[in-house]
């Protein structure tokens, strides 16, 4: 059922940077520039017409500068210390040979993916929907590493630090933490040294990064160099002050308001992304249009993707691509044949194994996190 007039809110949904300048960084394809120092680069949307995101197209997010641009594996070590029986200093070879290599396909999505669409606008990286990627990771299980080090009784959390460093001593180093309980319960947390069959691009964390399947990318520390086991909850800036969401069931508050209490962001919610056609495209009457994109969640796995061309009144299931596991992008596709000229809004929503789906109205929080409103593209049929 088409609309008679172009939709009023179409232009509002252009993120500030959508279609912004493209730049070329080492080992990278042309990506959308957010910032240059430290580099923040977004993957153009058309790459999400397939389940695996190529390494050269994988987005880049850093917080502090300088970042490592040169790593010598002869001297690089992953140090494991703190509350452990046997502190470790692991070379890349150690990681590869002393622990069984584990393979896993998992989505890495920035907590602020889609922040550019928040209304009212919020400060922070004005990402469109390309601050995400899906790759096959190979690495050592963090559990195996922690067992080799021998966690002492009383251990509560482990912190993760990488080679990036603050420009000034007053800027907090980028350090993240996870609970020991999480790490010992989840065998899929990896120290990954391989991405889509190749070494990690420098800007994606060479030589090794943390992979925390199902959790937002803020935990996937790059250029990992130090793991410290603590007997208390870590209170560093990037845990205690940043990456906080409202302590409400939806992680959201009334738009423009301030939450009473906040908690650290953790697991990803359900999303479906439309890679093609582009918002605003013109298509021909009675000719099939191919819709493509990906769907994912925080680790239950996508069971169903549906599509609507009538503002959500009716939905029909679309075709799903191969299943690469519950942490992976699930490719989806549909053929749509417009039968009447006019203006259409196509919407796509996903549902996961737990029965969770996506809201029709966007959730809002001051950090610009957790975006998972049903995405849509507006088309003109002529």
């Amino acid at each position: 059922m088409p609309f008679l007039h172009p939709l009023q809110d179409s232009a509002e949904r252009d993120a500030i940077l959508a279609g912004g300048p493209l730049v070329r960084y080492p080992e990278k394809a042309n990506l959308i520039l957010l910032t240059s120092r430290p580099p923040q680069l977004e993957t153009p949307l058309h790459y999400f017409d397939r389940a695996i995101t190529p390494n050269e197209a994988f987005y880049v997010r850093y917080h502090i500068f300088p970042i490592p641009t040169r790593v010598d594996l002869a001297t690089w070590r992953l140090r494991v210390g703190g509350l452990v029986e046997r502190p470790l200093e692991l070379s890349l070879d150690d990681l590869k040979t002393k622990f069984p290599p584990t393979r896993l396909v998992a989505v890495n999505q920035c907590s602020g993916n889609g922040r550019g669409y928040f209304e009212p606008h919020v400060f922070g990286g004005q990402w469109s929907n390309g601050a995400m990627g899906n790759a096959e990771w190979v690495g050592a299980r963090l559990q195996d590493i922690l067992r080799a080090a021998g966690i002492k009784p009383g251990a509560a959390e482990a912190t993760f630090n990488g080679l990036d460093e603050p420009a000034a001593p007053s800027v907090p180093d980028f350090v993240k933490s996870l609970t020991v309980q999480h790490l010992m319960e989840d065998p899929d947390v990896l120290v990954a040294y391989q991405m889509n069959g190749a070494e990690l691009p420098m800007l994606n964390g060479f030589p090794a990064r943390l992979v925390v399947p199902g959790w937002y990318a803020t935990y996937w520390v790059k250029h990992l160099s130090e793991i410290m086991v603590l007997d208390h909850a870590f209170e560093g800036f990037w845990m205690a002050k940043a990456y906080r969401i409202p302590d409400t069931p939806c992680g959201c508050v009334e738009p423009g308001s301030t939450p009473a209490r906040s908690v650290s962001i953790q697991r990803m919610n359900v999303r479906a992304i439309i890679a093609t056609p582009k918002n605003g495209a013109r298509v021909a009457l009675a000719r099939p249009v191919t819709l493509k994109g990906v769907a994912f969640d925080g680790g239950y796995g996508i069971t169903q993707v549906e599509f609507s061309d009538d503002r959500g009144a009716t939905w029909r299931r679309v075709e799903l691509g191969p299943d690469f596991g519950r942490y992976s992008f699930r490719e989806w596709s549909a053929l749509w044949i417009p039968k009447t000229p006019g203006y259409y809004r196509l919407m796509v929503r996903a549902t996961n194994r737990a029965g969770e789906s996506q809201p029709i109205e966007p959730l809002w929080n001051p950090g610009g996190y957790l975006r998972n409103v049903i995405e849509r593209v507006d088309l003109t049929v002529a």
Partner: protein
Amino acid sequence: MKLAAACLSLGLALVLVNRAEEKTTVKEIKLPPDDAAAELKPGPGVEAVRAQCAICHSTDYIVRQPGGDAKRWEAEVKKMVTVFGAPTSDADAKVIVEYLASRYGPQAKKSSHSKAARPR
């Protein structure tokens, strides 16, 4: 051609000689230059922004925000000073906030490429 071939074989020789050490153990990239400050709109206070706001990060951090009124920018500059330790005096902060609010005010939320921004 000849020159290229010579270079190539020289390159190979280097790889062979160094195989055990450097060549295989080092990965290095060169980042493009940070030209962001050139993008700042002219106006009183732009020099203070260049001097004070490009110490820890490029100024595209500032330009690529949705924009804000003086209150919004004041909060942002205050955050830089109190949370991250930016060495900005109160006097400079005032100049910077005025510059940002006038050059990167709330109406600057659409970049030039997006047509048809609608009145709300």
